[in-house]
């Protein structure tokens, strides 16, 4: 067998292993982070550039954006028992959700672009205070086990 053919086969094997790695890693990257439990009025999920309906029971993934209309509101329960809800005219990005159900270690980043948000922290924060963070355009909230509300008024910036 010629040397170039061996290299070709090696490249193919490498590519295959890379693909295998991607498949194995996928659940950790794009798995279920939470479920919609409350959905009123106009609510949408944006995932990979697509707009999806957001009925009760719909899955929420990391990197999803959840948007509500003028009469909309939405409530999500996450796998670590964190609760988030957004009021009308809100835009909430689930930037990152990683949770180990055995150790309760994890990282939870969300960003409120506009509107209102209520937060009840869960097991991630209980295990590691401030491993949950809520960003707004001007600030970052580090959560140390608590309930709070946030409002971002975008009427000036728009």
């Amino acid at each position: 067998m010629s040397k170039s053919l061996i290299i070709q086969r090696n490249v193919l094997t490498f590519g295959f292993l890379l693909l295998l790695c991607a498949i194995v890693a996928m659940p950790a990257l794009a798995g279920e982070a939470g479920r919609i439990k409350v959905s009123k009025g106009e609510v949408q999920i944006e995932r990979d550039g697509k707009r999806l309906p957001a009925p009760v029971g719909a899955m929420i993934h990391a990197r999803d954006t959840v948007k509500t209309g003028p009469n909309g509101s939405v409530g999500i329960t996450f796998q670590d028992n964190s609760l988030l809800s957004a009021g009308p005219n809100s835009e909430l990005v689930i930037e990152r959700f990683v949770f180990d159900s055995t150790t309760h270690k994890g990282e939870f980043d969300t960003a409120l672009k506009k509107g209102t948000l209520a937060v009840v922290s869960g097991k991630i924060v209980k295990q590691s205070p401030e491993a949950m963070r809520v960003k707004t355009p001007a600030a970052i909230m580090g959560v140390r086990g608590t309930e709070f509300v946030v409002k971002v008024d975008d009427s000036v910036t728009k």
Partner: protein
Amino acid sequence: MRFPNAPVILALGLILGACAQHPPLGNAPHPIEREAVRTGDHSGIRTDEGEAIHTVRSRAGNELVVLLPKANGSVGAVVVRSTGSRPLVLNKPYAAARIDGAGRLQPSTYDADLAKKEFSATLTALPVRPVSFLLYFLEGSDEPTPESERKVERIFADIAERPYPEILVIGHADAVGTMQYNDQLSLLRAQRVREDLTRRGVPGKYIAIAGRGKREPVVRTAADAPEPMNRRVEIIVR
């Protein structure tokens, strides 16, 4: 011909090493360091906006954070960080911070009634809090104790009120018998509870079950000792 050869094995090692990095928990940088960097990014975006930043700056307080007392009456804490001020810790009921477009923090105490009114649509949309229940069982059996049997109705009523309940049923056993016997027994107990719930109308697709055998006693006992508190099933409802 030798195949696979050294480069392939090396590549395999590298790839598996990379795979092992998910999820990236262990090596995560300290949250505070990362936050500082991100806050910097925010300010960068703002200064690029030119005129917009002037408008934002002229109207203070277009962001608001209010700490609420928890359902059980206790209060936690939130640390608010921004580029324009030193970090502010909110740790009293209705402690609040307003943040203007320049990232300046203004601490205050918010009116409880006003907070409830202003955020009423948002707070109403909060999901029902996750809950867990315990049922106890007769020795060596998947039959609940009469007292636990009476609790099943109430547990079912709670579950029935929840939209899209995600239910985890975990069976446990006491130390009487072998590991294998107790693994089986704990799983039978969990199955029994799942049947009870589905018979009362909870769709089976909502229920996941597991048996933990005698691995997780709530009361430590001698090997082979019976213990009613350890013969249990946990029902966790999210």
